[in-house]
Every structure is written in C-alpha cells, then in structure tokens.
C-alpha cells in the first residue's frame, strides 16, 4: 500500500480535483438552487398550516438539507474514480499521487469543502431573506434560541451521522454491483437521517439508550466505512 504523503502534491491534487469536478458542480449547483428554495418553501408551508417554528425550525432545515446533500458528493463528483461509465476510465488511478493522497482528497472535498460551501450558501440566503424583512424571517439563524439546545454529545452524534454515511458513499462509489450499490445507498441514507433525528429528539422522545452508546456505535460504524472505502480504493481493479 502506498502511504506516502506530500503536502505540495496533495495541494495540487485537491486543486486538480476541484477543477476536474467543476463540470459536475453544475449538478450540485442545480441541486443547491432547488435546495435553497426548499427552506423558504417549508417555512411558508408551515405558516399556512398554522404553526411556525421560527429560526430554530429554519436552522434545523438548513443543517439537515445541507448535510443530506453534501453526503451525496462522493457519488456526484467522483464518478470517474471507478469504471462505471466506460472501459478505460483509468485517469484517476494513473494520476501521479499516492493512494492515500487520492483518498484524503476525496474525503476533504466531500466532508469539508463542499458541505461548508453548501452550509454557508444556505445561511447566506436565509440571512438575506431575514435582512430584507421577509415575513416569517424575524431572526437570523445565529440568534436562534435553538442554538442553546445544542450540546457536545448531540453535535458528535449528528456529525457522525454525516461522516459515517459519507465514508460509506465513498465506498459505494467504487462498488460495481448495482444491487449492492442501491442497498448500501438506502442503508446509508437511513443511517444519516435516523442518526440526526435521534440527536434531536433524544430528550423529548424518552429513548432508553444513552446517547454515548449511540455515539460509540456510530463511531465504530464510521470507522468501518472509512476502512471499507480506503480498502476499496486501494484494491479497485481496472
């Protein structure tokens, strides 16, 4: 296994990946535009049914939606890692960078750069709507009372519900069996949604399992997914 790591080469690789993926960012861009409409739409819908949840509700929607979209990044941007489309798609494998650098570049783009960009864009839109005094947008997201309810364990639980499935999606991206890919995608989405949901409602719903057990279980699963992804990336045949 090639574990060599050179920071300069890694920088080049990340720049390369962003550039190489840029045509695919239009797909992400389209999703982003539709998703940016999603939050205001939900807020308006709630107002019609007679209950508004204010900035806390918007915060929940923004975070859930950003994370749900970001987790799909490995599948959206790195389709050329494996040979799903055509024969001879060996470009990524033959790029002069170590396997570790290639894996970390995918992780960085999928788990940090794109999610951050999505969250910032979502918050910016929400802030803009608040700044121009759109009805139902009374407070900025960072002024939300809901922020007081966030605790470190809950944050860990939510973060793992994003990190674990995203590692899983990196693994799934290199899997060729279609049935296995679909099953894995559904399971990973289920994990992500339920993990985030549990972190939110654990106090309200009187769930008997302590949060730390859920965190440990998620961490173990995330480590397994990270290993599977790394192993698959190393052993993928061309």
């Amino acid at each position, binding site marked *: 296994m090639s574990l060599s790591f050179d920071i300069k080469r890694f920088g080049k690789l990340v720049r*390369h990946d962003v550039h190489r993926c840029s045509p695919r960012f239009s797909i992400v861009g389209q999703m982003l535009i539709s998703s940016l409409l999603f939050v205001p739409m939900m807020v308006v819908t709630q107002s019609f049914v007679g209950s508004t949840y204010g900035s806390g509700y918007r915060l929940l929607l923004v975070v859930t939606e950003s994370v749900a979209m970001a987790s799909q990044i490995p599948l959206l941007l790195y389709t050329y890692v494996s040979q799903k489309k055509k024969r001879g798609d060996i470009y990524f494998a033959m790029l002069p960078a*170590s396997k570790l*650098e290639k894996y970390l570049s995918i992780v960085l783009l999928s788990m940090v750069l794109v999610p951050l960009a999505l969250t910032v864009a979502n918050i910016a839109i929400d802030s803009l709507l608040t700044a121009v005094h759109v009805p139902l947008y009374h407070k900025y997201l960072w002024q939300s009372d809901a922020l007081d309810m966030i605790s470190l364990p809950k944050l860990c639980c939510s973060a793992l519900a994003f990190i674990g499935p995203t590692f899983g999606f990196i693994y799934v991206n290199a899997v060729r069996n279609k049935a296995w890919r679909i099953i894995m995608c559904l399971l990973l989405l289920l994990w992500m949604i339920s993990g985030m949901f549990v972190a939110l409602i654990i106090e309200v719903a009187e769930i008997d399992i302590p949060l730390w057990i859920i965190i440990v279980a998620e961490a173990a699963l995330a480590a397994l997914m990270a290993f599977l992804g790394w192993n698959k990336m190393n052993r993928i045949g061309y």
Partner: protein
Amino acid sequence: MIEIKNLDFCYKKTVVFSNINLSFPQGAIYGLLGENGVGKTTLLKIICGLQRPMRGTCTVNGMTSHDRLPEMLQRIVFLPDEVTLPDNATPQKYVDELAPFYPTFSQGTFLHLMQEFEVEAERKFKEMSFGQQKKSLIAASLSLGTDYILLDEPTNGLDIPSKAQFRSILSKIADEGKTIIISTHQVKDVENLIDPIVILSHNAVLLDASVQKITEKLCFEYGGEERDDALYSELLPGGYMNVIPNENGEESQLNIEALFNAVLRNKNVIKELFEK
C-alpha cells in the same frame, strides 16, 4: 527498466499468464503482439499497476507496479484503446490538469505534436472525430515526458497520413532514450518501428526477440514457390512468401504478419529455434 518475474495472473477462473518472465530495458520500441484475449492489454495494465498479479512481481525502475507510487506514476503513461474524456474539455485543458503532476511535461512538445497531427488544442473533445481525439491523447501522453510510454492499439482510428506521422514521432521519441511498448493488432502500422517483438500466447510468452535475432533465426523469402520446409507460407501477388529457419545465415526483410503466423503455428519449433 521494467521487469516481470514469475508472474501469474487470472480473471476469476481464466488463467491469463502462468509464470511468465519478461524484461523491457530502456530505450526501445517494443511491439506486443498476440491473438485476441491473450492478455496484451492486461499485461500493460499490470505494468502500470492497474492490475495486481496473483503471484510473482512486476517492477518499474525497481518499484513494485501495483503499489502505484507517485514516483513510478510520474515516469509512466498508459494510453488505453478507449478513454473517457472529461465533459466539455479541450486537449489544452486536459494537459493543463495533468501538467502539474509531471515535472517533465513540455507545453512546447504538446503544441508541436498537435500541430503535426493537425488538431486544434483549443477545440472541445466532443466536437472532434474519434481519430482527432486519439491524436490529441497521443500528443498529450507523449508531451508528459515520461520514461515509459504504454500504448494500447494506438493506431486505431488514425487515418493513413496520421499513421505515418505517428511512426515518425515515435521514432524521434525512442531516440531520446524513452521506452515505448505498443500493443496492437495492426502490425502493418508499426512495421519497421517496433524492435524487439514480444508475441504472447495463452498463458505464455511465445517470442521475445530483437528484429536482428529474428532475422538471424528465420528467413523471409518472397516471390518463390511454396516450400515444404516452410514454417509458414502465404500466397501473395508475385508468388509465395515463405518463412523458413535461417540455416545459411541469409539476410532477409522481416514481415511481422508472416512471423506472427509462423510463431502461432509452430510454437515448439520456434521455441527450440530461439533457445539455441
């Protein structure tokens, strides 16, 4: 130098290579020939680390190829028969993305080769014919300046003038001390270019010899009668072309197609002849 030692490879239950040994010293254009499905492309993939052998080793400059170390990948370029090209990219953008990873890349060489092939560097791949895409990729691959250049069916899709340009470009590059391995069915396209010649058969290497050694061992006779002692005979306009063991040390012009057929039909005889 590329070295393959005691290599076994199989796809599920299909054995492709069984205990093969080959070496490719630097500074030559190797022709990799063989029937369909004997593993020519697989061998190229093993050399550049895209396939892992079941047993044995394949090293490039002493580095195990399937480790795909950056130091090895910087020295080797593989141009497959079919390539997935990025959407909306131009050849110039394509090399711009690759160039930072190859310290030996030369923009001047790239533009010169594109000019020789008469393809515009700023034209989108999707607006090009298959042949133009192929020429662009050949130009991009050769301009990276790697020590080892692996080409799988490089003349597929090239028109007749482009094939001549291709041969002339490769000859110049080989003179610079680069190692080029060409896997092809189109032997006529690379005749007078490849030397040494490697012929693969199912599971094994049938022949691995320089053109000089081949013509020392075999004689290619044109225009005569069909000979009884010929390893291979073919009727051509003007008479038969016979491939016979060269017992009298006669000089003759190598015909790769005839050689290929002679080798395939007389595996054991050829083996004995070249082991002498």
